[in-house]
Every structure is written in C-alpha cells, then in structure tokens.
C-alpha cells in the first residue's frame, strides 16, 4: 500500500518500502528500481553481443573462404563486408561493453554495495535506459535502410563518413552517427546517477576507503567518460551537419579539415578504452578477493593508480594518428606519454597478481574467469607497447597486429569480464545457483578457442596484412597465409558453439537452479547481506545496513571465520 507522499526533502527518512513499483509487464517499462534497470541493460547488451558475434561469424567466413555463400547470410559483397566490420566494432564497444560493464553492473551493484535502497535519481535512471534502448534500435535500423549499413569503420573518418557520394549510404551513415550520439547522451545521464549516488548515498559508517573497488572503478569510468566525450559530441554535431546540411567542417575543398575529426574522436577514443577497462578490473578484484580469501594487496594503490591511468589517458590520443599526417614532431611526444601509461596499468595488474600470494584459492567458475582476464589481458597490454613505439607503428598501423592487440584487451574486458561478473552475482540477481559443470565447459570452450582466433592474427599482422579488406586472395604477398585465416575462423565457430551451454545454463538456472542463500560465496560486501534476489528497496527500511570496516577483511588473524562482512558491528 502506498504511503501518502508528503515527504519533506531535507533530513527526513522517506518510507521507501510502502510503495511497490508497477506490476506486470508495465513493470519493465516504467520501473525505476535500479535492479530492474540494471537487468534491462544487461539483457539488451547480451542481445547486442549476440548480434555482434554473428556479424563476426559472417565476415570471418568470408575471409577464410572468400566468395562463399555464408550459411545464414549469403554471399558477402565488399560493401556488406565493410558494414559488417564497422557495425561489429561499434556494437561491441557501445552497445555491449559499456552497457553491460558500466550500466548493468553499475546500476545493479552500486546501491547494494553502498547500502542504499536505490540510485538518487531513479527517474533519470529510467530515462537513461530508454534513451539507450532508442540508440540500440537506431543502430540496428541503420543496417536495413536503403544503401545499407554504414561501412566507414567504427572510427568514421571523414571525408568518407561525411559525404554520401563517398560512402554510398546517406541514411546508413546518418543513422549510425545518430545512434552513437544518442548512446553518448544515455551514458552522460546515467553517469550522473552513479557518481552522485556513490558520493552521497552511502550507508552510515562507509568512508571513502570502505567502498568496494568495483563501485569506485565504475564511477571513475563514468567521470572519465563525461570529461572525454564532450569534444566528440561537438565533433559529431559537426559531422552530422556535414552529412545532412552540406556544411564543410571536414571537407578540404571547403576549407575544412578531416584530421580535426580524428583528433576529436581519439581524444575521446583513448580514454574510452579505460572507461571499459576499469570496471572490468573492478569486477576481477571483487572475485579474486573472495575466492582467494584474501585482502586486496593495496586498496589505495589501486585507487590512485586507476585515477592516474584516467588522467594520463587524456595525453596519449595521437598514437592512433602517428601516420595520419600530423606534424611528425608530435609523434615523439605521444610515444613518450603512451609508453608511460603502460606503467600504471602494469601496476594495476601486478597488485591483483600480488593479492594471490598467500591466498587460499578455489577455482569456481567466476574465479576461472577472473584469472583468465589477468592472463589474457597481459597479452593485450604488452602488445600495445609495439604500437605505442612510433617507429614500429609505421609498419604495424592498420594491420591485423592492431586488431589482435585490441581484441586481447577488449575480449577480456567485455566478454571475460561479463562472464565473470554474471557468474559471480547470478545467485544474488536471480536467487539461484548456476551449474558449475556447464560453467566450466563454457569457460574452457571460450578461452581456448579465443587464443586460436587471435594469435594467428598477430602473425598475419606482422606479415603485413592490413585491416578492413574483404579478400586477401587479391594480394599476392598475403595469399599464402590463408591457412592462418582458416584456423581463426574455425576457432571462432567453435567458440560461438560453446556459448550454447552458457545460454542453456543461464536460462535454465534462472528458473530451475538450486536456490541460493544470501551469501553463497561468503563474501564481505553489503550486497550479500540481503535476500537473493533483493526485494524492492533492498533492505527493510529499518534495517538499512551500517558499515564498520573495509570490504576486503578476509582471513583476519583475530577471527575464526575467514571473512568479515562490512555490516557486522564486531
């Protein structure tokens, strides 16, 4: 029953529990509950991930068997190939990695982890998802308009992207750009919620250093996003005007400059990779601490290093533009900054690895994913050094070496990170346990083939193979490396097939899995103190938690139990 709504807004506890959200199907359209909104982002993101993955299947089939009629798609024309790789990249970054890692888990976890009953702006939260959903619909719609999907790469460099005579899809290019811009708006709005909620809505007793790191990481990522996307928003408006009004911001024939777009894009684009990396690292930290039963090695180091990485990320962007026609002297500056940023990132990984020392490690499915993140991301991280060294980038730019590098970073972030988070918080979200055997089958069936997809791509890149080309049989020097392409494609198909046990496990466990109690992993953070799944309002209003210690007090010598929840007075 709803309480009468005369709530004073200053210093008076509101009665949040009396009013339950809308019922039935309307619940999913109008609910402002952060948990429901989080799940909406999660399932939308996973659906888009399936689409992005199927796109990869199609274009990899074309690459391995040029000219083949791809089962489920047909023959891939050069224009379709470009649209597939463009939208695969765009979808995976903007409609999978960001919504799942930041919006889904940020929404779900932040209020729970800080002992709050919801975000501080629930209706704005609702609006953010609706705008995001609109952007997802837009990007999918862009694939079906006359002219087809936009095929100018996720980086959308003008003049190709600005002029329909060059990109041959006036509608596709404009819809693509509008979808991306709308997604930015959704995340700007969502970010406000995360940041302000973390700052202000914490449980009594929760000081800054008592906040679980994943919550910090999501908020730092949101801040990073907000401060870096602005120039690109401006640039996108300019590109939109070039596309639709005939302005010449990026048209050299009219006094414009194509390189301006590149600067605006990468000024955002580089911080963006840390926008998705930090939440993934946060997720890994929570899981490693729990399943190694160990206090995180250096909480403050992690926090300050994450902030340092974020700050430094604003100074490296032109390493994407070494051979783009910028002043060659600038390249030296960016080589220095780019190589320096490897230091705090290495530090983050070293600290997580150091946390394993002295631990008592159990290899549950979430822990396997978290450990795989570390092992695989290390490869991604070190291969970035090759590209940051300007002299080497002259050769390696735009080759498959770049592609393999960023898949060794993005895949751990977006895919491994997602599976880690999902398998870890599934019991809390759905009140049931996932099947461990299926989880392990899914794990090995994903991680092993993943390496067989991308290690061949490193070799191909070192051999001089360039990106965004639909058939390498056209190039005499590259044709003979075809076996490597086939290995990569076959491995991708194997990996995609192993996602079937995952989806079966997910949907079956949601309904029929063994019931989970409040804290199946014996973890310390506040989300594990409430029911699985938590009720609307998360805790009864008179039982909102108070916090007495930090989040990683595992195996404390003064305690018999090897964990010490944050909300216990002693």
């Amino acid at each position, binding site marked *: 029953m709803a309480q009468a709504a005369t709530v004073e807004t200053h210093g008076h506890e509101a009665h949040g529990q009396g009013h339950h959200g809308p019922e039935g199907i309307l619940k999913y359209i109008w609910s402002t509950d952060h948990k429901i909104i989080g799940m909406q982002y999660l399932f939308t993101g996973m659906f888009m991930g399936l689409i992005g993955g199927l796109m990869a299947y199609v274009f990899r089939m074309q690459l391995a068997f040029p000219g083949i009629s791809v089962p489920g798609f047909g023959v891939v024309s*050069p*224009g379709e190939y*470009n649209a597939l790789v463009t939208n695969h990249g765009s979808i995976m970054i903007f409609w999978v990695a960001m919504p799942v890692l930041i919006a889904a888990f940020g929404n779900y976890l932040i209020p729970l982890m800080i002992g709050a009953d919801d975000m501080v702006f629930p209706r704005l939260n609702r609006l953010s998802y609706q705008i995001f959903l609109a952007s997802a619909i837009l990007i999918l719609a862009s694939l079906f308009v006359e002219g087809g999907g936009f*095929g*100018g*790469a996720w980086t959308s*460099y003008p003049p*190709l992207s600005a002029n329909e005579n*060059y990109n041959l899809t006036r509608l596709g290019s404009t819809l693509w750009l509008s979808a991306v811009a709308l997604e930015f708006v959704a995340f700007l709005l969502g970010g406000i919620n995360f940041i302000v909620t973390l700052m202000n809505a914490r449980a009594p007793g929760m000081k800054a250093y008592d906040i679980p790191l994943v919550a910090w990481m999501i908020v730092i990522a949101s801040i990073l996003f907000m401060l870096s996307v602005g120039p690109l928003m401006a640039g996108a408006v300019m590109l939109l005007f070039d596309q639709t009004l005939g302005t010449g911001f990026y048209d*050299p*024939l009219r006094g414009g400059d194509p390189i301006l777009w590149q600067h605006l894009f990468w000024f955002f684009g580089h911080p963006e990779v840390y926008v998705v990396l930090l939440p993934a690292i946060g997720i890994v930290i929570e899981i490693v601490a729990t399943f190694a*039963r*160990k*206090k995180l*090695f250096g*909480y403050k*180091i992690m926090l300050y290093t994450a902030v340092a990485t974020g700050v430094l990320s604003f100074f490296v962007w032109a390493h994407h533009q070494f*051979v*783009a*026609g910028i002043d060659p*002297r600038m390249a*030296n500056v960016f*080589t220095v900054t780019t*190589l320096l940023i*490897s*230091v705090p990132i290495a*530090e983050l990984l*070293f*600290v997580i*690895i*150091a946390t*394993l*020392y*002295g*631990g*008592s*490690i*159990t290899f549950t499915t979430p822990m396997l994913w978290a450990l795989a993140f570390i*092992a695989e991301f*290390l*490869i991604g991280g*070190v291969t970035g*050094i*090759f590209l940051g060294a*300007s002299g080497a980038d*002259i*050769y*390696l*730019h*735009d080759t498959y070496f770049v592609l393999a590098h960023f898949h060794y970073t993005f895949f751990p972030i977006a895919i491994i990170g997602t599976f880690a988070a999902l398998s870890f918080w599934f019991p809390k979200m759905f009140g049931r346990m996932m099947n461990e055997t299926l989880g392990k089958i899914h794990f090995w069936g994903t991680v092993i083939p993943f390496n067989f997809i991308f290690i061949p791509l490193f070799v191909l890149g070192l*051999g*001089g193979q360039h*990106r*965004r*080309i639909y*058939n390498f049989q056209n*190039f005499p*020097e*590259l044709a003979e490396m075809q076996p490597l392409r086939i290995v990569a494609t076959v491995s991708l198909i194997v990996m995609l097939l192993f996602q079937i046990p995952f989806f079966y496990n997910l949907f079956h466990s949601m309904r029929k899995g063994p019931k989970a109690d409040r804290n199946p992993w014996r973890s310390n953070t506040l989300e594990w103190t409430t029911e699985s799944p938590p009720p609307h309002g998360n805790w009864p209003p008179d039982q909102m938690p108070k916090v007495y210690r930090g989040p990683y007090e595992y195996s404390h*010598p003064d305690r018999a139990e090897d964990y010490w929840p944050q909300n216990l007075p002693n």
Partner: protein
Amino acid sequence: MVERLIQQASSYAHSIDGLILLVTVLVGFWFLLAEGIFFWLIWRFRAKPGVKSQYITGKEKHLKRWVTIPHALVLVCDVFIIIGAVQVWYNVKQHLPEADATVRVIGQQWAWIFQHPGLDNELDTGDDIWTTDDLYVAADKTYHFQLQSRDVLHSFSVPVFRLKQDAVPGRTITGWFHPTVAGTFDIQCAEICGIGHGVMLGRINVQDATEHAAWIALNNSVSAQ
C-alpha cells in the same frame, strides 16, 4: 623476426624490424615473468584443507618492494624503447634525405595513380609518365614521394619497405624511401576508403638501373607521341 614473414626491401626496413625485435625481447621478458609468477601463484596457493590465507595489507615494506621494484624496472625498459622508437621515427618521418628522384602518388576511390618524372627527372613537365596501379622505381636510389588524395583518406603502404603514410585530401605529404631489392611488391591501401578499399592493390616495380632507364625511355617515346 619480422623478416621471416616478409622480406626487407628498403634501407630502413631493418631498423624498423630491429625496433620490433627490441620491443619483443624487453616486453617478452616481462610478459613471461608476469605470466610465470601468475601461474606459479595460483598453483602454489590453491586451497588446501586446514590452511588459512595470510592477512597482508600491502603496507608491509618487504612486500611492497615486489611491486615498486618491477615498477621502476619497467620504466627503465620503457626508456630504452622510447629511445629506439624516436631514432627510427626521426630517420623515416622527420629527416628527408636528398632525393635522386621524386614521384607523385595519388590515391583515389579506388586505384593508385602514379606520376613519374620522365627523362628530365622533373615532375610536372611534359615528359612525365603516368601509370595506374603500377609504380616503377630503380633500386639503390633515394626517392621522395609526394602523396595526395583526390577524394577521401587513403594510405600508401608498402609492407616490404615497412613504409606507411596516410594520404589526406587537400594536402601533399612528402616522404621518402630507398629500395634495396629488385622485384615486384605489393602496395596496400591502409585506410578504409569505401567499398573498393579491398581492391586498391598496387604494385611497386623495383628495377635495376638498366631496366629502369629502359622503361623510362620506352615510355618517353610513347608519351612524346
């Protein structure tokens, strides 16, 4: 290492390959060390009945050292890589040696057009030789290239030279190369330029001095008509 996959055919190719090798060695060392320690730790500290985890805050000086010392060593390695990178970059992109000849390379949707200087060794004179798809140069001569685009961004890439430079419409960007091996090699467009990006294959024909002189002479008589 790279030369095992694709030959070196320019004067600076080996320095770029050398830089890649330097990075491989330095980065490879840290990578193997980190992965090695990682796998050792998860084996050594797997859960055993009756054994509790240690309580380590990270403030312990003797343990912090395990993070701060590698930290410093990584920085030192970075310095070596930076020095190597800057040297290679300066040589290829900042410094412009005197040219024996200059060619103009023009990218367009979707082909490469080349303007060779002809007998008088001067561009933009009546005897210039224009070709599509095929660039003709002589081995052991230093060339400047003037790179242009007629429409969108393209990128002039000759993998066996280890050379790459984006072509920007509205600009002429100058670079250089010095072929060292005769033969016919791929030119790839290295910046997505539309649906024909994948068919913008070009060929660079590096000829020895006599062959090249003959080629110029042949085309001179042709263009003089």
